């Protein structure tokens, strides 16, 4: 049993203030950079104290899941501010300019920070990044995501996918073609966030050409999981849209149920932790680690 936390992590109150001040011309980019470094150090420490197996950089500079690629890739443009699912957080929906997108340069360290030990890197899934652009996911994968993955060193690349399970008639086959393009580098996970993956599981989600599948178990029933699930499962057991902190023994018991169906399980949030404030997210990380420890103490599931 492993545990880690992909996705965008919330900014500390100090970083919130620094970035607000930057917008108002009251501070410098250097001061913001210094606070980002402090936030990153605290996040790394929090993950290490929690005993998480792969470190995440928390994507502290990402304004949303798509923005760095929209700004770095030719052929993509910033669209209208759009509500992210049922939250009060908004993102700039990517738009296409009619040409095949191409990542001019892989994202620099400011967006994918070096970490002291084994790490995971979160990127948008090709379906999510292509939504609304008029570009098919495979073309996005070839022109934007593949060059980025080729430039990465990571133990796991998590492709964050908030929209696929909610899309009517989602083209799972089209996504499979896109994922094939990304195959061959670091292990890949497709992380279905904040949504019921039951329909996708019934349509062969587990057959997609990735090494791991992430499932939100606050939206998805465990009964939707096949009796024998052949993939590495990232089990979304922290509710990242809820301020209540989880009960580690409850998570450990649930993990034991999962292990009866799945050979390899990692405990993760059900989406980006940025939808709660940083102190709450930090407490959730601690409890994720406690749940992993509690599960280890239970021994082999009955």
């Amino acid at each position: 049993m492993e545990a880690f936390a992909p996705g965008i992590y919330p900014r500390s109150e100090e970083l919130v203030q620094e970035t607000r001040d930057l917008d108002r011309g009251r501070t410098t980019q250097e001061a913001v950079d210094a606070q980002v470094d402090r936030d990153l150090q605290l996040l790394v420490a929090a993950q290490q104290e929690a005993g998480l197996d792969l470190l995440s950089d928390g994507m502290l500079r990402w304004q949303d899941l798509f923005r760095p690629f929209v700004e770095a890739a030719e052929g993509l443009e910033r669209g209208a501010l759009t509500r992210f699912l049922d939250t009060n957080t908004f993102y700039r929906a990517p738009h296409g300019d009619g040409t095949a997108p191409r990542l001019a340069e892989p994202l620099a360290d400011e967006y994918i920070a070096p970490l002291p030990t084994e790490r995971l890197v979160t990127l948008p899934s090709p379906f999510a990044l292509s939504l609304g652009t008029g570009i098919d996911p495979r073309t996005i994968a070839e022109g934007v995501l593949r060059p980025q993955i080729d430039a990465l060193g990571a133990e796991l690349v998590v492709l964050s996918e908030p929209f696929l399970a909610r899309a009517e008639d989602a083209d799972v086959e089209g996504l499979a073609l896109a994922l094939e393009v990304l195959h061959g580098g670091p292990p890949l996970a497709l992380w279905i966030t904040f949504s019921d993956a039951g329909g996708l599981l019934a349509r062969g989600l587990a057959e997609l050409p990735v090494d791991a599948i992430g499932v939100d178990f606050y939206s998805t029933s465990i009964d939707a999981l096949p009796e024998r699930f052949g993939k590495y499962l990232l089990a979304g057991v922290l509710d990242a849209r809820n301020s209540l902190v989880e009960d580690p023994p409850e998570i450990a018991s649930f993990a034991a149920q999962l292990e009866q169906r799945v050979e390899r399980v990692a405990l993760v949030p059900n989406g980006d932790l940025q939808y709660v404030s940083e102190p709450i997210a930090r407490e959730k990380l601690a409890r994720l680690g406690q749940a992993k420890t509690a599960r280890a103490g239970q021994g082999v599931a009955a």
Partner: protein
Amino acid sequence: MNDAHTFLTHEIGSLAKPPWLVKTSAGRPLEDSDIDHARSWGAKLGVGGHEELVELLEQGAEDRVQDVANWSSRYTLRLQEKAGLDWIWDGEQQRTEMYAWAIAHANGFEPRGTVRSFDNKYYSKSAVTGPISLAAPYHNDEFEFLKSAAKAKLKVPVTGAYTLAIWSYDEFYGASQGRLGRGESRAATIEARREFALDLARNLIRPNLQALIDLGSEWIQIDEPGASTESDELELFAESFNVSVEGLDCRFSTHLCFSNYDLFFPAIEAMTGCRQYCVGFANYDSRELGATAADRPGYEVISKFRDLPYEPALGLGVLDIHTDFIESPELVRDRILYAVDVFGDPARINVCPDCGLRTRSWDVAYEKLVRMVEGTRLAEEAVSRSLAEAG
């Protein structure tokens, strides 16, 4: 002349706070440019006694923040009056923010920190943790002051129950345990939110509205920017509005913005107590002139508001609040004339910006409002001419 028609004009809610209020509130020192701002805008708007404010700022107003806020309210009232609006508010100069201000005056909530709205913009989010009640009416002081200071009529913006519910964490109404691995039950989620929103409507919003009515408020605008967050909860939004206002003696309207407005139909057919919807359309519209459907793509949905059985007025958003582009009077005119053509009844059309102008400078906001009123006068001339010719 019997055929003359006039359109009612109004604002929506917020305006930017001036630098001298922002800095005084934050305990930061003023610069000469801040005092020049107070001096020049005071003269430009004809704010009576504004030299007193300038003197106060020059002396240091750290311990007189409320006085400075009152001056800011006087300036914003004058700004809108000078632009020619019929119904105004003070741009919410006295409030912190539309969510936090209401929650700060409610029992049953606890703060849960800061969450991103977008980019480097954030908001403070709270959780409902117990039974909800009104700690103290939270617009009374501001309304009484503005009543004493305004020359035009006052429309009070109040954040609605559904938006307060959907913008809060729920630690009280929904299940706190046993959710893992069960799968989402939308029915249970909606029922928990229903209980939450209706408690807010009954125990927070309604007594606050009653207090405003007791003080003489004639028009209250219920702001619901979160109304369309969940497409399967629109009936709940309508129900929470009705519970908030039912039986109260006042003109109630609702402000909706930056949504797929089609989602609101047919749910808002039930909101029979809503006498006006003020809605942002200019954000989606072309900047070219013309009063046909093809010229006005941003206004395609307005026929649905026309067809509501209780025939509310439509507060027609004609100013895009997201840009510094100044709409010409002719563009405003054409947007109004298109709406009149669709509605077939000019009396049901009011004219307003898409939303509060908080993100624009006073220079831009003032210029936009002046052009809006000029465009309204042009539309009145055209409509009056048509009425005279027809009859």
